C-alpha cells in the first residue's frame, strides 16, 4: 500500500518536473544562450589582448583595464577618467533635477479630481513612448544656433554669438532630465496615492509647522517611491549612449560612448569590454544599495523592480 502511494507521488513529481521543464525551459534557455553566454563572452574579452583590427586575442592580460585607467603608449592621459567622472556627475545632477521636478508634479496629480488622474499620468508618459532618437533630435532643433532659446542665452551672455546651446554638457543634462522625468513621476505618484493622511492630520493637530509636517509626516512615506524612481532613472542614465552622442559632442562624452566607440570606427574590443564591466559593476552596486536602503525603510517591495 505504502509502496503504491510512494510510486504515485514520485510519478506526480516527475509529471510536475516535466511540466516545469516544458513551460520554463524554452525561455530560460533562450535568455541563457542569447544573453548570459554573450555577456560572459564579453566579460572574457576584457581580459584578452588587443589584436589587429581591435579584435581580442590570446594571451590573457590586464592591459585593457590599464588602458581604461588612462595608461596608453604615450604615458598617462586623463581623458578616460574625465569621461567616467562626467558620467557620474551627469547622473547625479540629472537625477536630482528629475526629483525636484517630479515631486511636485506627482503630488499635484493626486490633488486633482480622480477622473482626471489617469489622463494626467498618460500625458506625462506619452512623450517617452516616442523613439529616443526622435526626442533627442527635437532638442537638437530647439537648441541649434539661431533658435529663440539660443538667442536668449546669447543675449544674456551665456554663449558666444552664432553658437548653439548644443553640443554641450548643459544640453546632455537637459536631455537626460527630459528623458527620465516620467520614470520618476510614476513611482512617486503611486507613493503619494497611498499616503496615509491621518499622519499629516496628526502633525497638524500637534501644531507642527507645514515644513515640519512635510518632513516628518509626508516625506518618509514617499521615500519608497523616490527610491524606486532613483533606480529607474540613475542606472540607465549612467549608461546612456544616445543623448551624449547627439547633444554632447566630444567634450560631453559619457561612459556609454567610450564603450560604444571601441566597437565601431577605432575598434578595441578588450578596452570596450573593460568599460562594459565597469558599467555593470556600477549597475549592480546601485541596485544593491537601493535594495539595502529600501529594506531598512520597510517599503522593500516597491524597490524591487
Amino acid at each position: 500500500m505504502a509502496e503504491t502511494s510512494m510510486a504515485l507521488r514520485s510519478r506526480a513529481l516527475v509529471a510536475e518536473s516535466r511540466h516545469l521543464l516544458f513551460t520554463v525551459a524554452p525561455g530560460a534557455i533562450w535568455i541563457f544562450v542569447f544573453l548570459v553566454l554573450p555577456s560572459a563572452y564579453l566579460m572574457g574579452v576584457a581580459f584578452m589582448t588587443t589584436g589587429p583590427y581591435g579584435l581580442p586575442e590570446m594571451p590573457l592580460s590586464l592591459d585593457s583595464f590599464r588602458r581604461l585607467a588612462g595608461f596608453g603608449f604615450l604615458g598617462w592621459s586623463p581623458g578616460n577618467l574625465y569621461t567616467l567622472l562626467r558620467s557620474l556627475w551627469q547622473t547625479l545632477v540629472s537625477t536630482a533635477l528629475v526629483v525636484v521636478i517630479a515631486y511636485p508634479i506627482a503630488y499635484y496629480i493626486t490633488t486633482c479630481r480622480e477622473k482626471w488622474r489617469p489622463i494626467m499620468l498618460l500625458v506625462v508618459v506619452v512623450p517617452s513612448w516616442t523613439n529616443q532618437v526622435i526626442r533627442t533630435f527635437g532638442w537638437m532643433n530647439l537648441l541649434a544656433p539661431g533658435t529663440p532659446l539660443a538667442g536668449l542665452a546669447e543675449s544674456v551672455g551665456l554663449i558666444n554669438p552664432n553658437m548653439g546651446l548644443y553640443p554641450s554638457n548643459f544640453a546632455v543634462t537637459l536631455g537626460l532630465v527630459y528623458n527620465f522625468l516620467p520614470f520618476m513621476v510614476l513611482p512617486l505618484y503611486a507613493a503619494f496615492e497611498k499616503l496615509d493622511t491621518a499622519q499629516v492630520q496628526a502633525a497638524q493637530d500637534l501644531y507642527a509647522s507645514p515644513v515640519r509636517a512635510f518632513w516628518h509626516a509626508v516625506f518618509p512615506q514617499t521615500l519608497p517611491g523616490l527610491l524606486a524612481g532613483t533606480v529607474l532613472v540613475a542606472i540607465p542614465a549612467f549608461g546612456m549612449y544616445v543623448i551624449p552622442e547627439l547633444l554632447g559632442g566630444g567634450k560631453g562624452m559619457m561612459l556609454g560612448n567610450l564603450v560604444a566607440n571601441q566597437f565601431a570606427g577605432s575598434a578595441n574590443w578588450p578596452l570596450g569590454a573593460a568599460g562594459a564591466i565597469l558599467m555593470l559593476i556600477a549597475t549592480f552596486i546601485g541596485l544593491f544599495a537601493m535594495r539595502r536602503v529600501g529594506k531598512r525603510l520597510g517599503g522593500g517591495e516597491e524597490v524591487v523592480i
Partner: protein
Amino acid sequence: MKKRTLQRGLGVFWWLTLVFLYLPLVVVMVFSFNSANSAAHFTGISLRWYRRLLGNEEILSAFANSMVLAITSSVIALVIGCLIGYGMYRHRHRKLGWLIVLIYLPIVLPDIVFGISEMTFFVQIHRLTGILQPGIETMIIAHVTFQIPFVALIVYSRFVGLDPSLFEAAKDLYASPWQRALHFMLPTIKPALLSAFFLSFTLSIDDFVISFFTAGPESATLPIYIWGAIKKGVSPEINAIATLMIGAVAIAAVLSLIFSYRRQR
C-alpha cells in the same frame, strides 16, 4: 488661503512641465511642414518633405524592416514568455530564485552592454560557423530576448490575480490539459496577452541602441535610418518621418485611454 496659493502655484508648474515635455515634439512636427530647408526659420506651410518621403526607397524599406522586426519578435516573445509566466505561477512554491535572476537580467542590464554583448557574440559565431550573419534575424533574436521578461511578468501577475479555485473547477470540467489550456487558460488571460503583445511591440519600435548594434547593412530600421540621417547632417525629411512616428504614438495613447476607461465601466 495659503493652501489655495500653493495649489495655484502647482498648477502653473504643471503646465510649464507639460510645455517642457511637449515642446521638442511640437517643434519637430511644426518644422516638418516648413517650406524652407531650415530648422530655425519657418517660411510657410508645404508638404514637400512628406512627398519626398514617399519617393525614398531607403525610408520605405526601413519602415518595412521596423514592422517585420516588431511583429515577428513580439509573436515569438509572446509564446515563450507566456509559457514562462505560466510555469512561474504553477511552480511558484518551489525555489525558483535562479529563474527570477534570469528573467530580471535583460531588464537591469544597461542597453549598451546588452547590445554590445549580442553584437560581439553574433560576430564571433558567424566567424566560426557562418550562421547568424548580422541582419534582421539577429535583431529579432535580440529583441525577443528583452521582450520575454515583460511578457512573462505580465502573464504571471494575471495568473496570480486569479482565484485559485478556478483552476480546480477547470480540472473538473475538462479532461485533458490541452482542453484546459484552450478553453480555460487562454480565454482568461486574453487581456494580459493583448497588453503583453502591445508592450512588446512598443518596446521593439522604441528600441534604438540594441537594434543599432545587432543590425546588418541591409536591415536598418526607422530609428537607425533617422540616426544615420542626423549624423550626416540634419535634413527636414527627418522631421516628416519623426512626425509620422509621433502621430502613431498619439493614436496609441488615445486607444489606450479609451481601453482603460472602457475597462473601468
